[in-house]
């Protein structure tokens, strides 16, 4: 067996024997993915219950309620009748509904006159969005009423005879606003919490391999193990390649295992397997190179732990393993593209939402490999002494 494989095999055996390595590589990301999947089960899509108090019973109220049940918003809210504004308020406080619409008596009758009455939305500070979505939907319906009233007023102001008001009103009621929103489907799956955080946590915990490996390297060295290996008829390069290989295999296996288990257990969708595999391979290569960098930079075990710890958390924070980087300010999204895990997260986001295969993954994979190459060169320049000294 080539010496590099011997070294890699020994490293992997040690890693497997150490339960904390398995906890970090596989159990921890799974536990956190499980917590996320349970926490957001049924709570992920925006949806609320809207109470409606209809004291008007007129055609305008009927139209308003119909607009709240139109196909576009049916997925957003469900309508529940409430007997009175007081009952609706109580229902909001007890969290049975998240917002309510009170349609006052006489709304239909007042719309044609100069002093129309207004419907009221009851809101809660705990679900401000439900209130504002209700206001928006009712607002769109009311906009047509206002547009019709404005049309008559404008025509009269422009010089139409005042006697024609009744006729104009009848004509205006048949108008529709000439700008209409139309849905255009994206052909993309929605981004889901579990599909984002499964890779995010898998990568975060695989990043710990950097700490783990660099630490064990310095422990080995201080125990004279590196020296003992070098006394054997092998090249120093064999030791390095062996270590790198073991990091690669362990990292890749834990990413793939977490990908498989989160898919099967929690319904995460990472993307097409081939593309996911390519991103995982690239990501693991970058971890190998970063490990080399830490070993090259550090001189002692303590330093290695410090540098690796700071590096892992800096990368995880910038790359979006903790926060949903898409929703971050522009500067965060730009910064994330200076990290390999940031690119990997972008790749997984695109793969899990937009579908797509290797083509989608190509740019992120190239970016991660480029990053790895730069890191490898720096590590190589700095790190000649690490093995030979």
């Amino acid at each position: 067996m080539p010496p590099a494989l011997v070294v890699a095999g020994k490293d992997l055996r040690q890693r497997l024997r150490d339960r904390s390595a398995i906890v970090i590589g596989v159990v921890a990301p799974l536990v956190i993915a499980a917590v996320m999947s349970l926490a957001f089960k049924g709570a992920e899509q925006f949806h609320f219950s809207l109470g409606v108090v209809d004291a008007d019973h007129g055609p305008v109220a009927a139209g308003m309620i119909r607009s709240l049940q139109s196909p576009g918003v049916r997925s957003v809210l469900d309508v529940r009748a409430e007997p009175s504004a007081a009952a609706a308020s109580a229902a909001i406080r007890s969290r049975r509904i998240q917002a309510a619409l009170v349609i006052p008596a006489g709304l239909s009758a007042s719309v044609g006159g100069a002093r129309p009455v207004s419907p009221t939305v009851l809101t809660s500070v705990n679900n401000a969005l439900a209130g504002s979505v209700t206001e928006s939907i009712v607002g769109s319906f009311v906009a047509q009423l206002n547009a019709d009233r404005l049309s008559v007023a404008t025509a009269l102001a422009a010089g139409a005879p005042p006697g024609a008001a009744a006729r104009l009103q009848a004509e205006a009621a048949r108008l529709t606003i000439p700008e209409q929103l139309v849905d255009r489907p994206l052909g993309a799956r929605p981004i889901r919490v579990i599909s984002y955080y499964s890779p995010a946590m898998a990568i975060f915990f695989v990043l710990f391999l950097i700490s783990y490996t660099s630490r064990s390297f310095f422990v080995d060295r201080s125990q004279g193990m590196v020296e003992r290996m070098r006394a054997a008829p092998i090249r120093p390069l064999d030791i390095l390649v062996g270590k790198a290989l073991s990091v690669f295999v362990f990292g890749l296996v834990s990413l793939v295992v977490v990908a498989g288990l989160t898919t099967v257990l929690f319904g995460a969708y990472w993307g097409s397997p081939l593309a996911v595999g390519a991103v995982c391979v690239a990501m693991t290569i970058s971890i190998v190179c970063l490990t080399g960098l830490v070993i090259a930079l550090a001189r002692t075990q303590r330093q290695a732990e410090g540098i690796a710890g700071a590096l892992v958390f800096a990368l995880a924070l910038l790359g979006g393993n903790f926060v949903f980087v898409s929703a971050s300010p522009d500067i965060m999204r730009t910064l994330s593209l200076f990290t390999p895990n940031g690119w990997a997260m972008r790749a997984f986001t695109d793969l899990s939402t937009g579908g797509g295969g290797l083509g989608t993954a190509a740019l992120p994979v190239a970016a991660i490999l480029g990053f790895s190459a730069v890191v490898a060169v720096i590590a190589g320049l700095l790190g000649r002494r690490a093995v030979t000294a």
Partner: protein
Amino acid sequence: MTAVAVAVASLRRVVRDRTALFFMIALPLVVILIIGATVRGFSTFRVGVVDEGAGRTGTELVAALQAAPDLRVRHYPSVGAASRAVARGEVSTAVVLPRGMDTDLRAGRTVAVPVLAERANSTQQAAAAAVAPVLAAQGARIQAALFATSAGAGSVDQNLERAGRLQATLTQVTVASRTAESRAQTLPEGFSYSAPTMLVLFVFLNALTGGTLIIENRRLGMYERMRAAPLGPATIIAGEALGFVVIALVQSVIIVATGAVVFGVSWGNWPAAVALIVTWAVVGAGAGMVSGTVFRTPEQATAIGPALGMALAMLGGCMWPLSIVNSVMRQVGHAAPQAWAVDAWTALLARGGTLGTILPQLAVLAGFAAVLLTLATLRMNRVIR
């Protein structure tokens, strides 16, 4: 007092260890900064806009969208870029202003304004619904101008101007809104959200990894040595506990002070805040000592500690408000002490609570602390003999 000497030894080791200081101070502050800057938008939608050459009406519409209080607008150069942004979740939806929109509208043609949203995706639909009234308000003027012109009075441009004036003065059918529930159940957004939650997360997590101090003491035979000196187990345990509490307090004070000074976080009623910080430090000390006696190697503590700390923090509502998860998980989450601490901070920061308001949470946390410290004492007693 000899327990103090034991505590001081622990403290000194932590202060000398730059890695430990990084995880104790620098990391929490950076996370507060990043999460504070990122986690906004529980009450607004991010909306993308693609202007394909819509002309004046388009420009006016963008201005109106920007002025809407519940929308935040981002521009994209093409429909493709906007679609990707929606798919990635950078924006909840995107509006495409078609080429020639202005000309078409003036010529009396109805213009379809595409909004990038999947029927099945309620978040995208809700965002689209929020865009609709802004569009309708503009459309109303155009409808009115065209109607007046067709009724034989004035040109389209004249009537548009007229309609704009009238829209401002005419009594409209409005949609009023009234708050029916003002007891906030979540922390305010921004740093007031991230600082208290991350304080809770990191004090606990740090204590768990701090268990390595005890493990190393065990390995180095320090407890043997201490017991060779005339120190009883009670003194040693008290000293270690004191060390953990002091470390947690120092960490808390730095985070609270930086939060207040740099991030402008108001920590609420101060006697209540102090009581909460101290209680939480004691809970952390208990957890840290349990970690130091349950884990066998420093590697286990540094590996499993952070994972456990994060999982509990997620369950307990440090990473997202528990009000947005389903009710089962809300209840399960309260098995973690973090949930009670975050509840107490919410009462202080979001509802102006006082010591009296958070007494129930403090009592539960004290219970957690008592259980953890008892467990730790029992384990320590066995470990140091």
